[in-house]
């Protein structure tokens, strides 16, 4: 069984994230104020943390922009 040192990590649960295959798409979202307002922190070129409780609003925004993200439920 894998044992992790308890003081070496923090567990973030129920965290809304957006993952993109092409980092340029995330760049575009962050440059667009109307989309960026849902993004809280970029963790990597491909992954960003979203505002809790606003994933539905972001999904609507992404759909409006013509994107079709896969939505993975909790």
């Amino acid at each position, binding site marked *: 069984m894998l044992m992790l040192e308890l003081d070496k990590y*923090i567990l973030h649960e129920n965290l*809304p994230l957006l993952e993109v295959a092409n980092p340029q798409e995330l760049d575009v979202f962050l440059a667009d104020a109307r989309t960026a307002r849902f993004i809280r922190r970029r963790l990597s070129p491909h992954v960003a943390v979203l*505002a809790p409780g606003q994933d539905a609003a972001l999904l609507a925004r992404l759909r409006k922009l013509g994107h079709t993200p896969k939505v993975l439920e909790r």
Partner: protein
Amino acid sequence: MATLIHRFDHYLERLRADQLKKMARVWGGSNKLRKDENLALIQRGLDDPVEVRAAITRLSDLECTALALLKQLGGECNSSALAMALRASGCVPPAKNRYRADNSAVIQDLVDRGLLLSGYAYDPGSLGSSYSSYMSPLVFTDDRLLAHVTWSPEVKPLRLKPLSPPPATLERRPSAAALDVIGVLQGIDSLDGIGLTQKGTLRVSDVRKLNLALGWDKRAPTVNGLVFPEPATAFAYALFHSGLSKIRDDHVLVLTTAPEHFASLSYGEQVQSLLYGFTHATEWTEWGEEYRMGYNTSNLSMARMVLLMLLTALPEAGESFFSIEALDAAFFERVGEYFSLYSYSSPQPPYWYGKTPAEQERMMQEWRQKLRAQWLIQETPWLKAALMTWLYYLGIVALGMDNGTPVSFRLTELGRSVLQGAHMSTGRAGDEVQTAWIVQPNLEILVYLEHVTPEQLVFLEQHATRVGAQQHTAQYRLSQETVYAALEKGSTLERMLATLQTGSGAPLPQNVTVELREWAARRERMTLYQGARLLEFTDAAHRDAALEAGLRGAPVGEQFVLLASAVPDPAAHPRGVNYAKPLSRCLTVTEDGMVTLLRPDVDLVIEGELDLWAERRDATTWQLTSDSVCAALRAGARIEEALNWLEARFTGLLLPPFLRAALLAWAGAVTQTHLAEVVVLQCGQREVFDAIVGSPTLRSLLCGVLAPDLVLVNPAAVETLRAHLVWAGFDVADELKVKRR
């Protein structure tokens, strides 16, 4: 929908000894038993499945039919309606004495036998007045009896002569009927229900919207040339009475089943539930609003039930048609003496006291002729309308036409399946998939309704948009939106391609395959996790070591791992953040908008939230400004979000009110203040103050009272006022007395 408890136990104790004596006979009771003994015998019998089965073997055909009908109706029914259905079945023997052979007599016999009870709380062994269907109570049977009812109601076949084929016929395929019904469900679903008025009727505006959504432009659209009055109203109520919709607390009629789920049922199951609903939808009539005056609503339900019984009783005749006129005559023959659409009470036979048998016979014949003449005016038009509206629309009957007028009819295969239990060659769940459509390069699918199975219809409804439907064909269109929606609901690209190809019977156009693959691939390129689990390590070395040691997940950035499965030993997490719960309060906020973050690493979102609403000053300090707040609002945020967020993260009790007012003002709330240099007169003595402000001489020097001891003075008249006050002997100080808060 059941309104009574279907167990006799609650009611038996209210029965009299003589009633219990009769009821106990079916359980082996006799006249010698006392009331309490008969009561115990009945209760024991009902509780014992072996006794129930034995009792059932002692029932007559009429009694068996009654139980089978009640089982179909959910265990309870209006007593007059049940009597009419039994008469329609042909199981009620001709009456020796017409005066005693009213509807309640038929049912009372069943009550006396212990098979039914009435809903009269004070006397469940009685049915009340016999001649008024308006007054007739509900009757019900015990669920323990119904559990052993495995047969269908016996219906004596009608003696109707098959006709030669008519010049023209109208028939709706089950798939066409199913498509339309699914369309109605989707229409109601897309409108989020149909509103009801205070009186419980459908809101006219919502009915109009549904008509528009379904392409029913007129109040009485036609289906294959046949008028169907107020179809939106008809379906709304039929769905309600069938349990496929319900009334929400806010007085809106909403679906209880998703259109996709309804579409997955076989054609027979779909129609069966709706048939029941139409039977009881007395809020709608077959011949339109303008002819509603004068008829008895409850008798309408009875008439529909009787008609279904008669259609069930049609003789087996293959594809032959029967005359509508003959059906009407059979209808009258079975129930005409006991039923009228327009009367609350059964037709009354002539009073023949003191007449000879020959005279009685002549009077009865004349009475029957009179009834028949009235029937031809009142009930016959309704019968024709019923055949041409809901029965045709649901695909139960086909019509034989002569010069555009229906003159004959027959049950369709679907009708025979639903009403007579016949085997149906198509349209059952699990039918072998067959070639049913052509997929065109423009992404449209041309569907042949004769060949499409229910499963294929469900597939189309889930993966494409229906753009049109006619008697034999329907058109659907594939689009990125429909494919995306289907994939989001669990479909797969492989299934989509395979089903389209199988239904087409030929390879799909290449561009269609390419387009579907591209749409599916586009979805894979972006993922929105609604609730991911992320481990944040102190540094990259510890993160990488954990992955090396077997931690299952994907590395993100330098310190994170997006977990693929549950964290090992989930109980031991001393440090964690759950973003589905309220996050830590970690901010201090001052009146001038300075926000300090007390713990920078409290979670992954706080700094992003601060950057959205405020300007960063240093590593732990931000300031809310008009510019920063307005920028967030221009990006689509709402000021309520900022206020809620601050209040949720603020460590104090209350957000500074002045800052709150500033935020609202930046958001556009009108906040008017006035600042000016003024001269005021203050006098703490009420009488003197009143004398000054009330003085005709001094009033002209004053501008307005600000407080009970404060009045605004015209700046140009200050010295004049001072002179008056000095003349009056008042002390005039140059400073005000102010109480500090």
